[in-house]
């Protein structure tokens, strides 16, 4: 019984350590590009706002790259959170900015995680077309 309890605790510890490892978003050639007819500064601000609206903590905020992490929540069945989103911004002119978004899900908790690319792009479109 004692051994069994120790094994369970060890498994829990490994699981907790694995949950702490977040994956990194990647912008590949296959990642869809959306072009906004706005200066990069405005688009970067919209990207930050979009992350806030979708519940991400903004972890990196540079002119050409914004990154966010969704805090983990434990639920009855699956919980949620643990995704990392990267937003890449490329200036294509004084009033044109190309945007790529990628969501990285972590190994554990993937069941309760979501690809946020569309939600973020929709939020950015909403705030940039106001």
């Amino acid at each position, binding site marked *: 019984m*004692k051994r069994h309890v120790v094994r369970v605790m060890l498994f829990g510890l490994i699981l907790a350590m694995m949950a702490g490892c977040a994956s990194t978003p990647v912008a590949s050639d296959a990642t869809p590009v959306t072009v906004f007819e706005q200066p990069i500064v405005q688009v970067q*601000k919209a990207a930050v*706002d979009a992350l806030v*609206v979708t*519940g991400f903590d903004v972890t990196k905020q540079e002119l050409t790259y914004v990154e966010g992490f969704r*805090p983990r929540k434990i639920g009855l069945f699956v919980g949620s959170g643990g995704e990392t989103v990267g937003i890449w911004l490329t200036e294509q002119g004084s009033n044109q900015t190309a945007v790529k978004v990628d969501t990285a899900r972590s190994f554990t908790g993937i069941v*309760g*995680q979501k690809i946020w690319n569309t939600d973020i792009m929709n939020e950015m479109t909403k705030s940039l077309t106001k």
Partner: protein
Amino acid sequence: MKKTILSTLVLCLVALLTISCASTQSRYSMLMADSYSAKPEGYDIQTFYDDDIPQRPFIKISRLDVHLEKTHFIGSSLNDALPDLKKQARLSGADAIIDIKETSSMVGETKIYHVTATGIRYTQ
């Protein structure tokens, strides 16, 4: 010994379920280059709902965001978000809140509630 380990495990489980099942994120961002000193804690921030706006002249100074997430299928409402919304308004130096917009969604058993509003400052 066995009992102690079991009770510790149960305690940890209860703590995890109660502590990590909800999150609140809030922030403000200024809409202009000017910044204002924060209002003192306890300052009464007026709240205008729907399309209601104050009769006094004002300027829009800040964007306010409050994001609430709860697991176990528990939802949130404006009443839950209002204290944080007012706190962010105070921090941005606003006198009142207008343009309150709520959105709700769900991921698995997590209910998501987000409210965005505008902090305003009276000019007279």
